[in-house]
Each structure stands twice: as C-alpha cells, then as structure tokens.
C-alpha cells in the first residue's frame, strides 16, 4: 500500500508554510522594533478583512472599496498594455526580419527604453488633457519595450533551416509570416508580453499616485494621507498577489504555446 504520509508530496506545502512564517516573522520583528509604528501582521489582518468584506462600496470620489480601486487599475493596465502590444508586436516582427528597419529603429529603442515611464506623464497630460489618458499613455509606453525587443529577437533568431523550407517551396510573404515567423516567434512574443505586463503592473501604482482619482496606486497614496499604514500594507499584499496572478496567467500561456 502506498504511504499516505509521504514527505515528498507535502514538501511544496511545507516550503510554502515556511516562507509565510519567515515573512510574518520578519514583519512582526520590524513592527516590534518600530514600536508598532509599522503595524503588526495581526493589526493589518483585521483591516485587511474589513477591506475585503465590502470591496465594492462607493461613497464618493475619495472613498471607494478596494475592489473598485483594483478594477480601475486593471482596466488602465490592460488598455495601455493592449495598445502597447498592438504596436510592439508588428513593429517587432518588422525590425526582427528587416535589417534596415532594425538599424533605423534600434537606436531609438536604446535611447527611450531606459527612460522611466513616469517621465512621459506630462507629455501624456499635454496630449490627452486628462489624467486618465495620461496614465494609460505611460502604461502604453511601458509595455512597448519588452514585447518589442523580445519579438524582434525571436524573429531574428529563426534558424536557417526554417527559412530554407520557405525558400525551397516558394512560400508567399503572407505564408512565411503566418506559418514560419509568427509560430517560431510566438514563445518569444509571449515572454515579452509577460515581462511587459509585469512592468506595467509596477508602473501603474506610481502612475496613479501622480494622476489621483481612483486606482490601487491612488489608494496607497490616499491611505498615507489618512495615515493608515494597515491599509498601505494590505494594499501591498493585494498588489503583490494580483501581480503574481498576472504572471502565472502568462506563464500558462507560454507553456500552452511552446512547441516541440
């Protein structure tokens, strides 16, 4: 008979519990050291539960539930990310397959990529005359680079063998793009998207601190103004969890589209 209490099966769970214990221990220690100026896990937990109990309440512009904040942040992230990907993927396909395009566009990418996306915020305000548009704009700028670079890299690394098949059997340009380039580059593209959404999720918090209104980033800033560190810590946990889920989603996609 198979042993039910096999250590191997429970090992992942044990490690999970272990890392939670370390996190809580460190948090609790810091809380003690700061004389509870940083609230302890237990104090945060009650506020966290309160927040999750009524996530979608709406008492006017400055008092909305955490669910509302999260949803509006996610909508912004996906709008910006979607638009960014629509630009990044085709452009990546182009510069990955065309040397001239690469040499023309690569220097621009190299200069703009290291710029903090927040630097684009004023330009976004100028262009869209509204904080909402400006926030989506910075997410757009953020999510372009990783997808663009990964797509271009993927396309550029197509093995000669695959190109030879297309050449030998006279594939049309369209067939070459849809049956060779895109399927080969797809895993690279998804890696790019995964990196993009990760950075976009990080940038949205900072962006919403600038833009105000509603959103998880604004919630953090607003909680600071209200001096509720419990809310800030709860928000950090929520941001982290959502980020993890987004990453897992793209990880799943990546595995789904991996060939051979």
């Amino acid at each position: 008979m198979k042993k039910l209490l096999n250590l191997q099966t429970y090992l992942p769970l044990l490690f999970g519990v272990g890392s939670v214990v370390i996190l809580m221990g460190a948090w609790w220690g810091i809380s003690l050291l700061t004389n509870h100026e940083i609230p302890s896990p237990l104090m945060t937990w009650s506020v966290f539960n309160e927040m999750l109990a009524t996530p979608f309440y709406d008492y006017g512009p400055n008092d909305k539930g955490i669910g509302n904040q999260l949803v509006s942040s996610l909508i912004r992230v996906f709008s910006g990310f979607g638009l960014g990907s629509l630009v990044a993927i085709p452009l990546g396909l182009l510069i990955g397959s065309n040397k001239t395009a690469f040499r023309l566009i690569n220097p621009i990418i190299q200069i703009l990529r290291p710029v903090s996306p927040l630097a684009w915020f004023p330009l976004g305000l100028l262009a869209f005359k509204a904080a909402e548009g400006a926030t989506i704009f910075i997410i757009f700028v953020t999510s372009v680079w990783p997808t663009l670079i990964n797509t271009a890299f993927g396309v550029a690394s197509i093995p000669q063998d695959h190109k030879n098949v297309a050449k030998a059997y006279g594939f049309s340009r369209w067939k070459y793009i849809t049956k060779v380039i895109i399927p080969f580059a797809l895993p690279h593209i998804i890696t790019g998207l995964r990196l993009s959404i990760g950075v976009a999720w990080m940038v949205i918090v900072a962006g919403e601190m600038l833009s105000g209104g509603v959103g998880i980033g604004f919630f953090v800033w607003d909680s600071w103004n209200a001096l509720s560190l419990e809310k800030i810590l709860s928000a950090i946990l929520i941001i982290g969890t959502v980020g993890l889920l987004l990453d897992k989603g793209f990880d799943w996609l990546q595995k789904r589209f991996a060939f051979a």
Partner: protein
Amino acid sequence: MTLHPISAPVDSASEFHKIQSRPASIELKDISVAFKTPKGVFTAIKDIDLTIQKGEIVALIGHSGCGKSTLMGTISGMTQPTSGTVIANGNVVKGPGPDRGIVFQNYSLLPWLSVYQNIYEAVDSVFKGKTSAEKREITEENLKMVNLWPHKDKLPGQLSGGMKQRVAIARAFAINPSILLLDEPFGALDALTKGSMHIELLKLWNLDNRNKTIVMVTHDIEEAIFLSDRVVVMNNGPAATIKEIVDVRLPRPRNKKDIVHDPAYMEIHDRLMSLLFDKFSIEDD
C-alpha cells in the same frame, strides 16, 4: 518500352547508351562557388562541368567539407554560383523553384505544424491554381505513399528520425518536381532504417515510371552504388573538382541482399574505395 528493362544483361552497355541519349535534366557549366570569409575568399568548388540526364539517379560523394552540398545548392538554387551557369529543365537556375524538390539534411520540417500541414503548406504554396480539395487530395496521397497517414496529426517532434525523413520525402514528392535533390538524406538514420528508406525511395521513383531525376549527396559508398546510375566522386576541398565519375551499370530492380555478391558491384565498390581513401590499413612499422 521501359528504359531500364528488368531483363537487361549485366553487361548493359546498350542500356547505358539509352540513358545517355535521354534529354538533359540538369546541366552544370563551369561552376565555381566562392565565399567571402573574414580570412579572405574561400573557393569551395571550382570549374565543375556535369550533365545529368532525365530519370537518372546520380550520387555526389566525397569527404566531409569537399563542397558536395555546395554543388547541390547551386542546382537547388539555394546557393548562387560565383561563376558558371546551372540549367535545370532547360531554364537557367536563378533560385529555388517548384521543378526541383529538396530534401534537406536535417529534415527541415516546421515543428509547429502537424505532419499533414507540413506537406499541405508546401503543396498549397506550389499549386496555386488548384482547389483546396485537390490540394488536400495530393497531400493525402503522398502521405499514404510513405505510410504515414495514421500519423498525420502528429507533430514532427513526436516522430522518429526515419518517420521525419519520410515526411520530408513525401513533401518533396508532393510538389511533383521533375528533379529531386537529396542532401545527405539518410545520414542521421541508423543502418536498418537507412536500408528500408533506400527501398522506399526507389519504390517512389518506380511509381513515377523512373521519370524523376534524383541527385543525392552522400558519404556512404554502399548507398551510392545501390541507388545510383552514376557516382560522382569529388576531390577534397578547397576548390574541389570532380575527381572521377563512376558508372554503376547494375540492372534494376536491384536487390539489396544479392547485389553485394555481384562481381560488378564489388568492382565499383573497390574503385570508389580507392578513389576515396589513400590508405587502407595502418602501417606496421
């Protein structure tokens, strides 16, 4: 009248004459190929003249790096000769074309397409005028010919080396080229699979009334003799040339088991051995 009568005498000079009198399928005129490398210009092959008749099977043999694949590349159109002209089916070769089917050294199947799609996409690309029903029929027919119909939905990664090569051969046959170019097609296969692939290839060639010209690159002497009408032996590179062309006047169909006992076979085998190897044993002193 068949061009390779089964009852042909072993001393089939007359049969050979008939092959010679068939129209030219491939003409290589004064072909040289040189590559630019960081160390300077590297001449791979030099002044190659060769005419291959329609329906002939010709093997290019030589040591690794002697330029036989490069020579093959000039026929397929994947490599442009630095000087000289290649004429295939009466037209100057300027690039790859559907009259020349290529089977690559490493199968070159697209790993994200199923066995069926790998062939269908090639068929679809070449036969632009045909309806999709006709193209599906061609795909099916060729897959069945290599006995891979039950595996049509598998991805290349799920197939053995021999099966992959059969897909690649079916793909080359599916576009119905008059010239078939095989670049070390069986090099990566084990000896047993290789043997059955030889027979399979000849079967396909027979089905088409031996009308297809086949040029193959190989470094396997037995394979070259068993399959071909002529074996082109190349010098070692750089600037490789044709060392000698050995005629293989063995009647077809050839039997893999019996042929090795044929004195004519042994003679050709010996000749090829002495052309390819300088030494046959290590010196004792």
